[in-house]
């Protein structure tokens, strides 16, 4: 049963990561990358590493997404200017 859950999570991570690679919109791809982080949180928790899961939840899905989005806002402004 737990193996099936792990398998499902792995599949979801692969699908979301492929979506992040293939999507044309860069903001959408950052959002899908956040989904990869969420899936790995579940995996870390199943594999009995709650400390790492907490770190991933805060940094991987919270701060890094925010920093990515701010960076995108930055660079797209510069591109529009030139």
């Amino acid at each position: 049963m737990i193996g099936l859950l792990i398998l499902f999570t792995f599949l979801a991570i692969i699908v979301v990561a492929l979506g992040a690679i293939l999507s044309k919109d860069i903001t959408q791809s950052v959002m899908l990358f956040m989904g990869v982080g969420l899936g790995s949180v579940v995996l870390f928790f199943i594999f009995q590493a709650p400390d790492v899961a907490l770190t991933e939840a805060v940094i991987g899905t919270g701060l890094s997404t925010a920093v990515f989005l701010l960076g995108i806002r930055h660079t797209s402004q510069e591109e529009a200017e030139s």
Partner: protein
Amino acid sequence: MNLKKELRLKHIILSLLSSALLLSFLGLLMQVKTNTYKTVGDIFLNLNMQTATANAVTSVVTFFRGIDTVGEVTVLFLATSGVALMLSSTQRTSKKVVKQESFVLHVGSRLLMSVIILFGVYIVIHGHLSPGGGFQGGVVIATAFLLLFLANPNMSLSHGILTLGESLSGSAYVLVALIGLFKMNILLGNFLPHPVGEIGELVSGGIIPVIYILVGIKVGSEMSVIVEYFIKEDYYKEVYDA
């Protein structure tokens, strides 16, 4: 046209590779159970009984591998310095241009910020009892500041207090390590009383909660500064363009 074909081929190869990887792990995944190997983890778990912390990971991070934590904190400090050096080069104007924020956002962000900071402090203080610790709690506190900055661009942190907290906690960390060296002949020696009987209580584990609180202050202030630089630089740029 050619590029398109190449991309498609790449995608097919990529999906085939990932499915092959999945299939090869399938056999392993279906029989996951808690094996009892004799590994380094068991040795640490046995040693953990001496440090009297309920969370074994914390005792490894702050005690057995304490030097690594010092290194991590140093790396974080260097990263913060780099961000500050890179992003603070634009000339800073004092308070300018106020965008009207909505009332709901104004009240709600402040309400949420207090809750998030409370949660971060909880994670930091209970680092030796439950999952989490200084790094995670510090980042949670920084997330609260991120929310505040996103809701209100006119907000600014007082850098004096942040720098003071960051440097004081850093020096206190080194001081704790050195006191351990003098008293116990080990760097980061656990010189405070840590009876094993008190395991699981809030005040237990000797210097381990102290170290985690110091790390929490340091990480929280550094991350807040990074977030502030990222948002503020953007904001000032907008002001200049307008």
